[in-house]
């Protein structure tokens, strides 16, 4: 069974700063998913990483996948307040997605 571990679980950062969220997973997987959740809302798909070395970027967020290291990263560049949310990574174990516990990001002025 694939287990997913994210760190940090909580992150407070200033606007304009850069930071990286890490997602480690326990067994071989060639694809990894990132979701965003705003308070009280549902999960919105951010990135689907389909192979080793995959890199996807949207705005100030960039996600990458290293299947050999069993590691995915979500890099935030020049953070803005609108990025405040909880970010989840997930990988498939059989039919179902297993999620990390999420990283709660707060971007402050």
């Amino acid at each position, binding site marked *: 069974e694939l287990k997913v571990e994210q760190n940090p679980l909580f992150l407070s950062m200033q606007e304009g700063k850069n930071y990286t969220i890490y997602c480690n997973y326990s067994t071989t997987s060639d*694809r990894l*998913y990132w979701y965003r959740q705003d308070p009280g809302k549902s*999960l919105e*798909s951010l990135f689907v990483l389909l192979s080793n070395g995959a890199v996807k970027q949207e705005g100030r967020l960039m996600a990458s996948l290293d299947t050999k290291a069993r590691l995915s990263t979500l890099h935030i560049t020049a953070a803005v307040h609108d990025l405040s949310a909880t970010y989840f990574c997930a990988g*498939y174990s*059989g*039919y*179902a997605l297993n*999620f990390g*516990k999420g990283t709660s990001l707060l971007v402050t002025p």
Partner: protein
Amino acid sequence: DVKVTQSSRYLVKRTGEKVFLECVQDMDHENMFWYRQDPGLGLRLIYFSYDVKMKEKGDIPEGYSVSREKKERFSLILESASTNQTSMYLCASSDSAGVDEQYFGPGTRLTVT
């Protein structure tokens, strides 16, 4: 765009009541899922269905049952609601099992008093 809808955004029920949560998807997806989300515990899979009338238990099926009579609809049933079932319930659907991303509904926040 994939659309997953859930019957209620907020629901308040009493202990012992039978509770039905409905989920409908409009993309002809084969697979549908029910998760619950609790602070500090993340998302946990309750049940999923890979075809009409087919279902599999997830990590925490106790106290729950499901029904999938039509492809687009997946219902979660709490046979006798208890206070420890107070939670956010999220429905999701996907096309190919174990491959494609899952699309989530807006969630139902259930409070059992």
